């Protein structure tokens, strides 16, 4: 698509300014729980004696913190979060978005430039301390756990007369029976078509393909092919040069017996 990759530069042209705010993890989790239009709180920007003060207040209904397994813990998220403002110096930060709609039209557009960086900090409060304590407890639990069992485990590795897998295999072998020698011409056809696909074959693979007994197959192969210890550890069969024709269309040379 010629469109793909084309960046929509309206944001950059308008010099839209945005803020980049670093938000603690628990707060973003609470925000994810927001309902409706997505209101999460209020931002208050004030000018106090020339200095800008920014503070974010979390909505009341979002302060319930879920503990492990989504059940409410007794901890409440703190509500007041002052923002620490920082400058963007040293870097030019632009914001771009990727839109992926169902029509699979990926559009990339530049939304704007970052004019202000901020960090959202929770105001130090009793709630916050409790929240932190809860987090630390969760993290400090070891991933692995040793547990003592009361009874010995006896549900595995019982001795069996013959494994079911083995039985199946034997049955399969019996059904297949010994491989019968097919007509030589047929076998040759099969071989040539096989060698059309690949140049080198292992004898086992050829037996698989042709379903012929090994000795019979080997005799036929000795006629039309060569056995090479190719240097790679497998010993493989390949067609004799006069039978090969590996360029584009393959030709087969058949011997008429």
């Amino acid at each position, binding site marked *: 698509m010629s469109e793909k990759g084309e*960046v929509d530069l309206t944001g950059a042209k308008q010099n839209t300014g945005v803020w980049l705010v670093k938000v603690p993890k628990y707060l973003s989790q609470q925000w994810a729980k927001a309902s409706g239009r997505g209101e999460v709180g209020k931002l208050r920007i004030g000018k106090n004696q020339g200095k800008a003060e920014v503070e974010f207040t979390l909505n009341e209904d979002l302060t319930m913190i879920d503990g492990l397994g989504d059940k409410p813990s007794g901890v409440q998220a703190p509500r007041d979060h002052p923002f620490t403002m920082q400058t963007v110096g040293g870097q030019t930060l632009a914001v771009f978005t990727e839109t992926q709609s169902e029509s699979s039209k990926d559009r990339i557009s530049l939304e704007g430039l970052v004019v202000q960086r901020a960090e959202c900090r929770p105001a130090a409060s009793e709630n916050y301390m409790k929240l932190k304590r809860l987090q630390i407890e969760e993290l400090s639990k070891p991933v692995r756990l040793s547990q003592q069992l009361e009874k010995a485990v006896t549900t595995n590795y019982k001795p069996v007369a013959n494994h079911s897998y083995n039985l199946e295999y034997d049955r399969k072998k019996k059904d297949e029976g010994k491989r019968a020698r097919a007509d030589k011409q047929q076998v040759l056809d099969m071989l040539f078509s096989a060698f059309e*696909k690949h140049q080198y074959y292992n004898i086992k693979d050829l037996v698989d393909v042709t379903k012929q007994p090994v000795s019979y197959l080997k005799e036929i192969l000795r006629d039309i092919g060569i056995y090479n210890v190719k240097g790679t550890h497998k010993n493989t069969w390949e067609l004799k040069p006069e039978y090969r024709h590996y360029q584009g269309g393959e030709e087969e040379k058949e011997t008429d017996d």
Partner: protein
Amino acid sequence: MASLGGSSSSSTEYIVRVPKNTSKKYSIMAFNSGDKVNCSSWTQARMERDMSNRRMYGVEETEEGAAGSEFGKKQREEARRKKFGIVTREFKVEDQPWILKVNGKAGKRFKGTKKGGVTENASYYIFTQCPDGAFEAFPVNGWYNFVPQAKHRTLTAEEAEEEWGRRNKVVNHFSIMLQRRLREQERGPDDDDEEGEKGGKKKKKKGGRGGDLRIHDLEDDLELSSDESDSSGGEDGDSKPKKKEGDVKGKGKKKKKKRGSDSEANEDSDDGDFEGLEVDYMSDESSSEEEAGEEKAKSNKEAVPKGIDEASESEEESEEEKQNEEEGKEEEEEEEGKKTPVQTKKKRDSSGESDTSEDSDIDGEAASALFMKKRTPPKRGGGRGSGGSSRTGSRPGTPSIDSASTSNTLRAAASKLEQGKRHVVGGSSESPAAKRLKMESSSTAVTTQSPAPSGKSTPQPPSGKSTPQPPSGKSTPSSSDVQLTEEAVRRYLIRKPMTTKDLLKKFQTKRTGLSSEQTVNVLAQILKRLNPERKNVNDKMHFYLTE
């Protein structure tokens, strides 16, 4: 929005919303302040993922089906990898870097690599103010650091290290990139043969030299070929390296070649090496130049009729050829103000024989280098003089500035010989490169000689092969500059007594293409056949021959 009025503080409240169901994914594009990126100045931009890291697993391996493949190879390879625990990382498209092209093809290019660890412990949100005054916060999905991509050519790490080692010797740093480009062209697709002038022009960044002498004139080539054969015996490798040195001025390709040969050959010819050099003032010498030219031509232009020897040589000497080309170019430049492609060609043609061509090439190059610098020598008989001087300059082994004045003179002489042989028409512009003062001095020495050797019919490109090659010398060394032949050894031993070590040094494995063991064996055989006389000098056994 509720506005609270306060006495000393005034604050406004805004509602913050986190929209839930946007299909937009926000990411940060970070530029370094040093790059001075101004997004508003972009007229258009294109950005897409850089998929170059995607390996088609299984398809990586070459053949698929038919010839060369084995039955079940893929499965076996996979099983083998699993057995050894090789885990190949999955290719995730979202983690791939971005390629951003600003302002079309001629604009800037940036590569944006994803920064890891951004969303691990804290989340970033983008706060935008909506028209209704509320803030909307969008979570940031990824952070990409964008760095500008260099459009100019850069050296690879190995090359950079090499150049670093030579930084004290190199005067003209501009030639480094030029040579590299030349080298690439040499090795590049052969259909680039229009190297003719265009190539030269493009390649030559410095000095805007036009016309790289690649144009190849069939007639000239044919003419030249007749001459060459002789000689080049020349000073074998010695002269060549010297010539390389001469190529400092970065005179377009010629220079590059010389430099290239310099780096390629890496023959550090110590000063003492050239002391016993005898210069053959034979008219045939032009052939060596021609050969050099031919060599160059060989490598450069397919159109040029190549002798069998040339053809066989081409592989080995790509460097030499480059040198030749450069030489040729230089010569041309000298003579025609950089618009003479012919010379290079001619040189190539003439050097039907490969062996000496190398030598001559180098000489020629050196010559050109010299000439470049001076530009003074008018096209006299193919600028022999310049050739000489440039030759001196271009000696590969010697650092461009270091060449001893004595060597210079000698080399100059040698190059003159070469020039004599060279068929290059076009004359004098040969040694563009010679920027050294030394060259100039040597050129004076050479000048005297230039008129002299004019053996060849066509005017030799001055820079051509500067290496003076003994006219009778090796006519057909198949490859490499120095052929380990009995003739070569004889020549050395006649000139001055040498130890086995010295001899080995002459036939460096790089040049002859033989392994060190082979060289030793062949050399031993040759010595047995020659049965030179021995004498002890400084407690060392020297061989020498008297004829």
